[in-house]
């Protein structure tokens, strides 16, 4: 089976609309705690997950809701879990950072880097059984500084485990620009641990699909792991309510609370010489500016929009498709929210 934009656009759109619905529930206060969405990385998730087989496994990080959804986990169970209802996927015990579906061999973790050992373990089970199932690990570029993930790249290569390591590189780790904390190149890093690496445009679902297909095929044939490095943008920042975006979106409300203490502290007696203080201020402002005018936020980089462009030539078919997806998500929400738990 090969992919086409007609086969890749629907899952991306479904994921986007589903997560936008989740965002509304979160803003309404119906979902508690942090909420890390995958809006902006749909091309990577869809490009990989849509070609997994029933017996393949997935290891996810704190940002796995979209992967679970596209893997075929009942979306109502997902919503109920996020709402913390007893009828949720995990009975309300896990929440979005701890989504588990045994039927799908899919496990999440809020511990950065944990997707590496987990995927290696799923792949180990397949290898011991001498099946040709594979395991996928999804993680961010920040996780590539976490020892357990580096170790598991080496473990997968020495045992030739059927693992696809997918690095969704949004170039941020919460408020830290990752180029400030990374030595070398991630692809070289993977190769130095024995895992061949490919770079792919994470906004191009077709490119991701093609690269992933080759890697998965290779793994099924027993040739070991691959490292897929895909760049993307997280439209909502690290999580919903991301301070740096709030600063940009509601400057009046947010700037005051931050600017006051910052300038007071900057001007306090005793401390570093001016040069160092201003360098520090520069470091803070840089992060804000980078968020404020991140060119990657332009619509042209939105993977869903880009996929849609490929289909504009057939407006009628496109409209029908989008109507279907819209209706599916609306029905889902209506159905899910109707079943308020006892």
């Amino acid at each position, binding site marked *: 089976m090969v992919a086409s934009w007609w086969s890749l656009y629907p899952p991306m759109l479904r994921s986007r609309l589903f997560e936008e619905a989740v965002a509304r529930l979160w803003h309404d206060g119906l979902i508690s*705690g942090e909420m890390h969405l995958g809006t902006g990385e749909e091309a990577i998730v869809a490009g990989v997950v849509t070609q997994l087989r029933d017996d393949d496994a997935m290891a996810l990080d704190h940002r796995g809701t979209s992967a679970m959804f596209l893997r075929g986990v009942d979306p109502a169970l997902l919503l109920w879990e996020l709402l913390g209802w007893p009828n949720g996927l995990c009975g309300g*015990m896990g929440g979005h950072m*701890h989504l588990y579906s045994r039927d799908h061999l899919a496990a999440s*973790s*809020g511990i950065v880097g944990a997707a590496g050992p987990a995927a290696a373990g799923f792949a180990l089970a397949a290898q011991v059984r001498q099946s040709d199932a594979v395991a996928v690990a999804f993680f961010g570029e920040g996780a590539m500084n976490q*020892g357990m993930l580096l170790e598991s790249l080496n473990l997968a290569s020495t045992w030739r485990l059927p693992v696809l390591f997918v690095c969704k590189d949004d170039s941020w780790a919460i408020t830290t620009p990752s180029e400030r904390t990374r030595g070398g190149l991630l692809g070289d890093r993977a190769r130095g641990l024995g895992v061949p690496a490919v770079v792919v445009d994470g906004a191009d679902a077709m490119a991701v699909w093609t690269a992933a297909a080759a890697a998965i095929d290779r793994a099924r044939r027993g040739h070991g792991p691959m490292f897929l490095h895909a760049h993307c943008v997280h439209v909502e920042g690290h999580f919903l309510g991301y301070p740096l975006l709030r600063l940009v979106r509601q400057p009046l409300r947010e700037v005051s609370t931050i600017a006051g203490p910052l300038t007071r*502290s900057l001007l306090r007696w005793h401390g570093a010489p001016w040069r160092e203080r201003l360098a520090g*201020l520069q470091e803070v402002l840089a992060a804000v500016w980078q968020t404020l005018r991140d060119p990657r936020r332009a619509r042209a980089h939105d993977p869903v929009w880009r996929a849609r462009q490929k289909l504009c030539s057939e407006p009628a078919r496109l409209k029908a498709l989008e109507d279907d997806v819209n209706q599916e998500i609306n029905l889902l929400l209506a159905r899910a929210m109707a079943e308020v738990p006892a």
Partner: protein
Amino acid sequence: MRTMAFTEAIDDALAQAMVADPSVILLGEDVPMLRRNLLVRFGSRRVRGTPISESAFLGAGVAAAMAGMRPVVELYMVDFLAVCMDALVNHAAKVEAFSGGRWTAPVVVRAPCGGGYGDGGQHEQALWGWLAHIPGLTVLVPSTPADAGGLMLAALRHDGPVVFLEHKLLSEMMLEFLGSGGRDTVRFDVPVDGARGPVPDRWEPAPLGRSITRREGTDLTIISAGVGVHRAVEAAQALASEGISAGVIDLRSIAPLDRSAVCDAVARSGRMLVVDEDYEGFGLSGELAAVVLEAGISCRYARVCTRTTIPYAPDLERRTLPNRERIRDAARRLMT
């Protein structure tokens, strides 16, 4: 006298310490943004952002301390200590013993802890009793802004490794960052006296290993730390209306433990109720039982702790963490 929020107090005490001692440095993930007020004052040589490499930067903090620095190493949450526990357990805590008392590692590990805002079981653990099991570690759990600042200063003066835990429910800033995210559609059960309060104009180090009595009581002694202290005081107020006089001791320091204060109070009241947000088994609540028995004090005993992995769902979470109702019921049972 000034009034400050919990985290504000800690950072203010840190600023005072950084002025007095150039060897005090801060490092951790997102520290440049989370401690931006200190960054713009003390510069990026002393206030450093790190990769997500806890084992490396905590281990580095331990060695830097051995080389004469006073590093405050920040973990994003105490739960994540699990990925770098070796630096604390097999190194920081053992340097003094291994070197025959000739060398120490005065590193301060600062980590948000605790639950009540919906992040679930990998992000809301307390773990203070777990850490206190290791000989050589000092473990501090302040419950008010004044104690938070004073204990941070004491930690920086201490000549060995200290774990300083900052409860997220007391930290306006952490709760805003992780819990509400700017929403006014969510509420948290925040102990007001813990989240904001009076602090001295100039910080003095608080004594290590010294508890404080938050409420006098003759019928039973409730012993707790962190948010549990505030839950206990509220429960004690309710119990008073039933004619039960419950005293509340705030340990503040888990290790070293204020054995004498605990023994005195329990010997007098004859009843000990431990309220511990950390896991029930093999932890603080057990140690307190042993301390009292070792002292030859016989008492009635009960504990209200976290017994399982902390659930995500708000109502399950509320029932799992020690709450007023559970404390009150346990106290009533102790009286019968």
